[in-house]
């Protein structure tokens, strides 16, 4: 687990590359020692600083994601041009067991593929330091299965189906829960949750921030 180094400050310094046996190692060794470019990573200092300003991720986290991205993308490509398919991102350990991984990939991908910046954007929303409004916004998009801008009964039923195993569940439980959720949070009685209603409900939930977090993006 190369990303585990909370005490290590100079992680852009050259490190033994022999740990990597994959094809992209050769590409990285060609990087050379230019001004501001590191031996191990293809990322420039300025890019790293910019990503730190544009996302909620720390330096270590960005480098960890960069690591993972290079492992998964086809060898020989510059990281800014390479893309990952939704399947590749779904099979990351962070998302592999998540029941909503297909929605997550659909929300954060553009044109069906993930660029490096899309992956960073996704990690930023799920990071610990992200602000609540950002998390709530993306949670709403993830939970809106039919993409009509509202979380309606159909979406709620799909959410509950994904959370529970269909063997353990009965129709009554499903309808019961759906009606309870709607009666609690649906303020204008249209049988759907609009974004503001969702935001109002989640802003008061102390567990939402804790559960809508992904720590580690390595593989």
């Amino acid at each position, binding site marked *: 687990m190369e990303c585990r180094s909370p005490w290590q400050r100079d992680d852009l310094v050259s490190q033994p590359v022999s740990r990597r046996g994959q094809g992209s190692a050769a590409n990285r060794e060609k990087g050379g020692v230019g001004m501001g470019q590191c031996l191990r990573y293809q990322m420039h200092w300025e890019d790293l600083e910019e990503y730190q300003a544009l996302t909620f991720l720390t330096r270590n986290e960005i480098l960890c994601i960069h690591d993972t991205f290079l492992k998964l993308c086809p060898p020989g490509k510059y990281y800014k041009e390479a893309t990952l398919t939704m399947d590749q991102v779904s099979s990351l350990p962070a998302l592999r067991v998540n029941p909503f991984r297909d929605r997550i990939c659909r929300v954060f991908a553009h044109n069906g593929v993930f660029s490096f910046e899309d992956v960073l954007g996704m990690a930023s929303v799920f990071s610990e330091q992200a602000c609540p409004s950002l998390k709530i916004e993306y949670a709403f998009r993830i939970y809106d299965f039919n993409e009509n801008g509202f979380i309606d009964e159909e979406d709620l039923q799909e959410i509950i189906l994904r959370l529970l195993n269909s063997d353990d569940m009965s129709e009554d439980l499903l309808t019961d829960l759906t009606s309870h959720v709607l009666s609690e949070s649906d303020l204008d009685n249209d049988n759907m949750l609009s974004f503001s209603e969702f935001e109002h409900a989640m802003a008061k*939930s102390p567990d939402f921030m804790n559960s809508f977090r992904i720590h580690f993006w390595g593989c």
Partner: protein
Amino acid sequence: MEGSPTWEPEAWGSSGGWLAPREARAAPYPPAPGPSLSSVLNELPSAATLRYRGPGVLPWGMLEEEDEDGGRSIQALAEATQKELQEPHASRELPWPMQARRVHRQSQARDQVALGSRSRVARWALVLGWSKEKTQEGLRTLQPWVWTLKRIGGQFGAGTESYFSLLRFLLLLNVLASVLKLCMTLLPTWVEGDPPGPPGPDTSSHCGSYDPRPQGLIAFPTQLFSLLSGESFLEWSSLFYGFYPPRPHLAVSYLCCVFVIGLLHLLLILHRSVSGLKQTLLAESGALTSYSHRVFSAWDFGLCGDVHVRLRQRNILFDLQVELEEAELRRQAALRTLGQHAKLWSVRVLLNLLVLALLGAAFYGVYWATEFTVQLQEVSYVQQLPLLKLVVNYLPSIFISAVNFVLPPVFKLIAPLERYTRSRQIVFILLRTIVLRLASLLVLLFSLWNQITCGGNSEAEDCKTCGYNYKEIPCWETRVGQEMYKLLIFDLLTGVAISLFIQFPRKLFSALCPGALGRMVGTQEFQVPDEVLGLIYAQTVVWVGSFFCPLLPLLNTVKFLLLFYLKKHTLFSTCSPASRTFRASTANFFFPLVLLLGLAISTVPVLCSIFLIPPSKPCGPFRELSSIWSQIPISISSLSQTTQNFLFFLGTQAFAVPLLLISSVLMVYTLALANSYGRLISELKRQIKTAAQDKVFLAQRAVALSSAQGAL
């Protein structure tokens, strides 16, 4: 859900309800004359911003072939972009793709440069905000074990992670306390020359002599046992109070150190608990939105790798079922007849009396054990066998641990009989366990006080000459320190013993013996509430003992370090993921409160010793004074007159009463403010409902009017 009585569902078309927008998209039926209800509603500005995804990206729910619709919406989106750019958002808080945020950041930077001569205040505010962010980030990188905690959270859930996070926080508290003790207590002792030895037997003090140092050769087992019980060579060492010489500067710094540590710990705990409290107090009423919370925050997104998905799903199902059950129970409770109510309440009163009786028995047992120890220590054969002497010494600790081991499962058995909802049962069990743990410590201290001050009777025969029982306990502060030291050591030993002799063998047994029995024996879970209460108890012991045993925080730091690695190793080797989710929000709110309670309780014995009980005459830095606190007025009298006047003023009523009045006024004002905010929220909710009804009514009328015109 039935429609509101002000309009009929049939007026909306065959589908009924608010399915019109989705239906319109899903099944485009031949266009009716004039715009349909759904298209009118879709054109509303609020619907446009709801689906906005960021500039340059197709908005939400927009199909690619709807070009003319797209043209209209993109205009609305561009206006929304303008609106957003005017508000000073940080770029990274915007829910847009990275490229859009980059553009936004660049335009913001350009605007700032263009504005140029901002007011100095704004610039300073900016610099302050930036430096605060940098320091916070710096402090975050200094935290140890960040990776371990994330791994634990990923595998065992947020509840277990919160235990280790609390352990790390307590470690920080103890490190700070040790550093302060070193600087304010140990350094001044050696700065002015080596401290002298204990007073010899020929001194003229009428309160007896005191020389605990061992004479002659001692056997190694005796030395080992003295290490464990804090006697003989350890008793006259910098570990305990008695060693410190009666120098005035040392006395002042010794006393101030305790207050400084107490204040520092209080501030740090409050700082930590504020975020947890803020989240929980924000909710108007937790019962109103619990289903939404449970459904939308059910899955812990942090779980990664190979996690038992089936187990998690069962947990969530269990949680939701419990919630529904509780609703059912509440409904049933409302339907109970008077007779059933009376029966239920009599059962509850009976069970509470039983609990009180058990607690009383436990406390009496602890009290008796402490008294009995003193008697047993005087029996001759106990004196001769060092091992027996050690066991007798540890009798109070053994009793407290046994009581803490036996009674909580009994509470867990009693709780379901009271017919409360599950969450309330958990609260009751926790409360009773907390009372048991903290109060048994208080009972131990009370029985010690009883021995020291002859039951508070300063005219009793033993206590008349010196104000305390000098014959039995010549140096009572060291004695209290020794008891706390023994509690700490015993707690560590039991922790290690439980891990080594119970948890690991159970795991081995389940590995060797497959089948149902092996599975049942081997499935161990990490019981978060019990472990956290153990931590809080250990910390309370240290808070009580650090006045009497200055090196106790240092010992506790080592103990917590060992405990961290031991618990982590035990967790990963033997425990399976929890079958009941323990909500992290409860942990963040409840446990800092209990920690504060422990701190508050620990001030009682310390303040009692400082103000009420006369210090021992043969030992300690306060030996020539009438009370420990009197050192402060003596030191103040050596300062200048104005400082003296100011400090004395702080202690008078003329200062305390206005302070109390102002605090009460502030508190009442804050409560009133919170109340008014709650009412405002309810009012706004009502207004949203009315506005939605208006919107639907107007849209309906618009459609009716335009279709009437089209028909014409």
